[in-house]
């Protein structure tokens, strides 16, 4: 008997209307996220891999309703998030948090580090004022920062320190689920490793479930239990991390993995031709067909539905027998 997943997304869509001015008609749509479905179990980390235009950042925000989905269902702990009213949404926010891509931009320059970390507590009024400094100290300790940092300002911190502060903030409300949007991409290699280890520790200690959004596959494989690959707003493949990386079933995943340079071995590279098409008018049928080395006529006509090619491993490709 499988337990209910913590987060379940079904046919999530986010389309943006394009208008030339406030009063003109809708000229077209940017299909940022198109019919994406996946689940995340409690204490599980799902990596969301994709390049620019894939829609991964939009998915992360839509799941938390920081961006309103155009259609589709987002169920958290069995409840429909898209139907929440203001109060329910506020309660939801205690359990599901986000770490933004640019730690510096996500902190108000006029606030102190302590203010940034305690903001969630003060907004939600969960903790009496007198206890807030103590909580901030504990959160700083959780991310291995000294307590006197509470008095500093964001501009006084290094990149790695800023990243830790925003992680501490995300933990303030003791959430069950965190969306981490490129949490280590802006950091130097040696600092990345420190933050990666921190995330590992927190994951183990606090039993967090995470949606880990990144373009860095190596880090993603390291931290995630499962990986979902998106391209131009659609889900291409999803499955256990190791399997996806060593035995991908989708041509895009295969190309993506081969493109990641490895310092110790040359990897056989599959070079994709051309550029990612614009999300304004995605190709018909399978959106990857314009660059796919295995394309056949049916790819232009039908959008491939995900098939379970091995237990827990789903691939959306008409030719999933090829790989």
């Amino acid at each position: 008997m499988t337990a209910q997943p913590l987060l379940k997304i079904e046919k999530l869509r986010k389309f943006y209307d394009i208008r030339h001015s406030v009063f003109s008609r809708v000229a077209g749509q940017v299909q940022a996220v198109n019919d994406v479905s996946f689940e995340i179990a409690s204490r599980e980390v799902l990596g969301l891999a994709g390049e620019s235009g894939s829609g991964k950042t939009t998915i992360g925000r839509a799941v938390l309703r920081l961006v309103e989905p155009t259609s589709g269902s987002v169920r958290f702990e069995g409840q429909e998030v898209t139907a929440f009213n203001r109060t329910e949404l506020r309660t939801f926010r205690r359990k599901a948090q986000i770490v933004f891509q640019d730690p510096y931009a996500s902190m108000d320059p006029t606030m102190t580090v302590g203010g940034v970390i305690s903001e969630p507590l003060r907004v939600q009024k969960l903790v009496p004022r007198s206890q807030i400094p103590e909580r901030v100290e504990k959160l700083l300790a959780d991310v291995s920062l000294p307590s006197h940092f509470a008095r500093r300002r964001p501009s006084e911190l290094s990149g790695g320190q800023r990243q830790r502060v925003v992680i501490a903030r995300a933990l303030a409300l003791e959430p069950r689920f965190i969306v981490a949007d490129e949490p280590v991409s802006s950091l130097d290699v040696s600092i990345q490793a420190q933050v990666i280890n921190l995330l590992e520790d927190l994951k183990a200690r606090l039993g967090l479930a995470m949606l880990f959004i990144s373009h860095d596959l190596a880090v993603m494989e390291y931290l995630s239990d499962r990986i979902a690959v998106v391209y131009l707003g659609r889900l291409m493949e999803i499955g256990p991390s190791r399997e996806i990386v060593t035995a991908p079933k989708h041509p895009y995943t295969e190309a993506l993995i081969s493109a990641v340079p490895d310092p110790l071995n040359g990897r056989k590279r599959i070079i994709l031709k051309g550029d990612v098409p614009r999300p304004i008018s995605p190709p018909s049928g399978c959106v990857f067909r314009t660059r796919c080395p295995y394309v056949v006529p049916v790819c232009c006509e039908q959008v491939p539905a995900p098939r379970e090619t091995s237990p827990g491993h789903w691939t959306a490709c008409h030719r999933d027998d090829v790989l």
Partner: protein
Amino acid sequence: MSIAEDNAPLLAVRDLAVVFGRAANPTPAVRGVSFEMHRHEVVALVGESGSGKSTTGLALLGLLTPSTAAVKGSINLTRKDGTTVEIARLPERLLRQVRGNDVAMVFQEPMSSLNPIYTIGAQIAEALRVHRKMSAKQARAESLRLLTWLEIPSPDKCLTYYPHQLSGGMRQRVMIAIALSGRPALLIADEPTTSLDVTMQAQIVDHLKALQRETGMAILFVTHDLGLVREIASRVLVMYAGQIVEAGSVEQVFKQPRMPYTQALMRSRPRLGGDYQGGVKRRIEAIPGTVPNLAALPRGCGFHPRCPHFLADVCDAAEPPLEATEPGWWVRCVRWRELAARSA
């Protein structure tokens, strides 16, 4: 489009030092860097922020102005006509002749290097006509050829586009086309693919490799990505806190790095598909601490505060010199011999 082979170095850098900041509070960004480059070579300059790698690249093109930085040392470049020039002492007028013709640079952010109010075609043509004296018609034909070679879709349409209409990958390829327009013998690429998607990065690296094979152009590839170094370079120079701390062939240095910093760097990145030993995930080892403040460097070895092999009174006594461990492989660590013997 090949350049005659020559055994003399194309570029010889000796004791390059760059200092930023006010006279009262100087920040030494580059401290005594020396290396050589030959034709056909691809050398990678690797380091994190604060290592001085980008500053070195800028210095090689004479792009550091006296009001911002003080440049000392020698940068000897052999031009296409056989003459040598000293970049660090050359007046701006002569530097402009060298730039584009003998040395060219591609930067990380193509958007800031391209002029937003001119079309792509106009910008490439301008570069071509400045460096190679062509008519407008010839320039257009050559622009088309360059763009086609770089596999830009619909190159004729692309010539009429403005920079903001192109994607990041396309812009970077246009930048490369412009950099190549003068047929330089040396290309300096400073993190050219960092802001791009990994599949686009693979394409561009492919192009650069093909380019280098066909024309014999030398490339100095500045990056922080060790995997990329492996992909494209034959030699690597690892920089830390303004100095070269290890230099050698990529094969040697990556397989058995002798400088603790290089070792730590190799261990701190997760490897795609390769982090398992007997089914158990390897824990990546983070380097503790942070990059030193260049304005207040530690005594002795710049890396010692973070080094797992730090030995008091040895590593913090004096600045270690760059030693040759074997021909072509240099290490800046006083303990390298005993550490290498230990792991042997």
